[in-house]
């Protein structure tokens, strides 16, 4: 249970980091280490080179750009948890982050690392999908933006190349007074979710839903934005019947099957958790009404 031998690098700038990525063909970036180190300790990965990006300045920040918050890739989950900006402007993220691991792992774990690792049940990728985040990646000689909808390529495979690294994430804000809810089911507190549901509702006067965003995590190989549900909700007035009916659509998701849960159970959880999340989000919206659905 010890890491295999590798060559260690600790570049001091993004340029140096991407230069290394371009040069080495079997390298792994070391960010928070909370996912990579267990894999190294158990020898699930055998990189020739480990590129530690913890000593690069200016990769960890939370910036308010008015219509969005921009996070540096190395922003520690702890900083997200204690950020007033996040609490006020992306309350969905604040609610979700308290489900991510434990104090010790959040002190080291990073936003960019979580996105790059892309575990299907991870909370931050799910929230990023819900909020339509845009991920900026850089490689030697170039940079590009990837919309969250295009970010996952497959099971734990983000769509950026091996010589690219995440530098920042732009999270567009929802209007003040929007409804939000992050609900998850895990065997133990802090575990990856077996299934989670992240809901955002922009509710206008009279409880009419102007815009909805429903994302489920842990059901599919990547966080899944259930656009079918978003579309049905748009324009409708929030009610227990509406939310119950529309949440049932989640049972149609082609769910994963593994040692933790069979597919039908994930589909069931997706429907139940989405129903609960919709009610909670509606209750929290400024123009919504108090509602609890079980």
């Amino acid at each position, binding site marked *: *249970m*010890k*890491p*295999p*031998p*590798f*060559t*260690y690098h*600790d570049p001091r700038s993004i340029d140096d980091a991407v230069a290394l990525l371009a040069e080495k063909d079997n390298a792994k970036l*070391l960010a928070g*280490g*909370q996912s990579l*180190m*267990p894999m*190294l*300790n*158990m020898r699930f990965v055998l990189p020739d080179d*480990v590129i*530690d990006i*913890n000593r690069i300045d200016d990769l960890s920040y939370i910036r308010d750009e008015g219509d969005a918050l921009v996070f540096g890739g190395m922003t520690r989950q*702890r900083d997200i948890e204690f950020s007033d900006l996040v609490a006020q402007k992306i309350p969905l993220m604040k609610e979700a982050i308290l489900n991510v*691991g*434990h*104090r*010790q*792992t959040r*002190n*080291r774990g990073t936003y960019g690392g979580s996105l790059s690792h892309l575990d299907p049940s991870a909370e931050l990728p799910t929230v990023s999908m819900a909020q339509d985040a845009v991920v900026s990646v850089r490689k030697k000689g170039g940079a590009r933006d990837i919309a969250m909808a295009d970010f996952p390529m497959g099971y734990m495979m983000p769509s950026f190349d091996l010589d690219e690294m995440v530098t920042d994430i732009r999270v567009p804000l929802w209007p003040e007074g929007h409804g939000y809810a992050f609900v998850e089911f895990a065997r*133990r*507190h*802090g575990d990856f979710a077996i299934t989670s549901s992240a809901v955002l509702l922009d509710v206008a006067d009279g409880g009419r839903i102007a815009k909805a965003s429903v994302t489920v995590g842990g059901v599919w190989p990547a966080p899944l934005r259930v656009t079918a549900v978003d579309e049905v909700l748009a324009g409708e007035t929030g009610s227990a019947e509406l939310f119950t009916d529309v949440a049932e659509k989640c049972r149609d998701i082609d769910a994963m099957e593994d040692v933790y849960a069979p597919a039908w159970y994930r589909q069931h959880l997706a429907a139940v958790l989405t129903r609960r999340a919709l009610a909670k989000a509606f209750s929290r919206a400024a123009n919504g009404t108090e509602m609890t659905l079980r």
Partner: protein
Amino acid sequence: MSDRRTISVTINGETFERNVETRLTLADFIRHECLLTGTHVGCEHGVCGACTILLNGQTARSCLMLAVQADGQEIKTVEGIAPNDQELHPLQQAFQDNHGLQCGFCTPGMLTTLLEFLENNPDPTEREVREAISGNLCRCTGYQGIVAAALDAAKRLQAGA
């Protein structure tokens, strides 16, 4: 020929300079290079909390860090909690008084975790304490004594013990 670096790490106020393999975990560095065996290794994949130390004042799992990452940093381990050889820190005393340990294997991790927690939450509820230690596994006590010790320690620290 293995990849090696010379690093300098300050642990409990004492600086250790060693030449180590870059793949050496911080936990193994603390235990086998610095001979501070109070920090324990349980699962080596970040779930049990036995290896928890304080890095620049914040708890971290030392099995999930490389020793080279701690170069130039300050670490506190369980050996650095007591104010001196004669006395125990109020948190440690509370553990003894409330039977918060049996075999003692999880205890160092519990102490470092609670030290950080009580500094940020001087007056916690029982529920908050349980959540705070949710990243530290104990096979012996059933956690009851640990929770009691934490709440007792909070009172003692507030009273200026």
